[in-house]
């Protein structure tokens, strides 16, 4: 048998920092972070969409910055801190998750992990964004269900909660205009 012809491709063996946990993992060297997360670490909260950088569905945070996990090599993430949607909630849901649920900002939910993480990065940098700033920060995430408005409103509400304000969703956000 020709060496290597029927053998599995050479694997990388490294320790990744995912959601604050150091995890040893082995994977084929050409795998993207998206594939490593979903297939090797079984963290399927990160969704795969276009896999070409055109939808934002696979967004995760690498060293705090939202990036497209479909276009980052797993190998290139050694020594970096990776945050996926699984790391957002602790004992309770993250305020963004709660706001998304309360306001119906998630419908089919497929794009939601990407939106949550991108919004989390925004709020860390800018705790009181305007609606325009939220729209701009989330302009790399596609959603085919909500029409985006509910998502922007949920980010605004979560931002208020995270600032310690006693904010309630406006009636028209919950029930529509009367």
């Amino acid at each position: 048998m020709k060496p290597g012809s029927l053998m599995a491709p050479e694997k990388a063996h490294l320790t990744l920092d995912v959601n604050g946990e150091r995890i040893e993992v082995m994977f084929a060297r050409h795998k993207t972070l998206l594939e490593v997360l979903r297939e090797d670490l079984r963290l399927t909260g990160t969704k795969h969409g276009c896999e070409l950088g055109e939808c934002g569905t696979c967004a995760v945070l690498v060293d705090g910055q939202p990036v497209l996990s479909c276009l980052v090599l797993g190998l290139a993430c050694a020594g970096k801190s990776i945050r996926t949607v699984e790391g957002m909630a602790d004992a309770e849901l993250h305020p963004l998750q709660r706001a998304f649920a309360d306001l119906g900002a998630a419908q089919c939910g497929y794009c939601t992990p990407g939106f949550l993480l991108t919004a989390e990065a925004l709020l860390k940098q800018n705790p009181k964004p305007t609606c325009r700033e939220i729209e701009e920060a989330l302009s790399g995430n596609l959603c085919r269900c909500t029409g985006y408005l509910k998502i922007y409103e949920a980010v605004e509400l979560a931002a208020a909660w995270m600032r310690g304000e006693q904010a309630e969703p406006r009636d028209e956000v919950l029930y529509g205009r009367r």
Partner: protein
Amino acid sequence: MLRLPSFTYLEPRTLKRAIQMKTNAGPDAMYVAGGTDLYPNMKRRHQEPRTVISLTGIKALRKRPTDRRTDGHTDGRFVLTAGLTLTEIAGHRRIRRDYRAVARGAELISTPLLRNMGTLGGNLCLDTRCNYYNQTYEWRKAIDFCMKKDGAICWVAPSSPRCWAVQSSDLAPVMVALDAQFLLVGPKGERVVPAGRFYHNDGIDYLTKHADEILTEVRLPRPNGWDATYWKLRRRGSFDFPVLGVAVWVRWDGTEIAEARIVLGAVASHPQLVPSAAEVIIGSKLDEEAVLAAANAAFKPSKPMDNTDFGLAWRKEMTRTYVKGALAELRARRR
């Protein structure tokens, strides 16, 4: 799933080592920076390097933007290293103040997520694009491959001997308009190339850079009495590559235009300088008549092909509108 083919991944820490690795690996190797252009291309089997040499670990490519100094003196040029991300370029205070066309070009690229990854150098070396090329392997195979990859024909212009893939970088026309200089480092040493000579009007052979050279820095001219802007046409306000880009640079002498450069993006395989349009505004006060004449002059040589989004007649017509708009913006800023 669209998966990357298997390849050897190298992470040099210095430019010298990177070039050495490229020399050793030969033509089957490619450099990668942010990966936002190369990896999708590899997934669709447009580019199939056996070795990928990552430039992200090279500190010399990620220095803070600074004035260029030789022997302790500055020549007024402002240096951007090629590994800076597009987010860093678009958000840099001094770039926003003195080189707003550069910041504008950068902030209009794709999406915030992609700009966190994509680099200045990567955008300037962006592969040319075409509706018949930027498709999956199966799609391309189904209609038979085009000459840019695996085939012999150009599906946009079947009788054409050349490839018509489109220059789709937003920063390339800006750099040509500004007459920026690019520093290339290769096995034979360094060389400086004006942005206008960095590009070829050929969809396949679109860069004058040799494959083993690395674009390491961009030198912007001293901000002294000139102004520039960039206008981008696309379907959505995010994600999309330009289907038309207009970069305009002017130098004012009092109330009149002393020098000008008008560059069209996404209508050819290179950023297209339109000297005939620049000539008609030189000596003018950018009054309505001069602006209209320049718009008409730019319209004539603007010859988009039917290989991106939107109809080509409309894209050609929009050249007029966008040149008018860009010049009007510069006039308004002068007042």
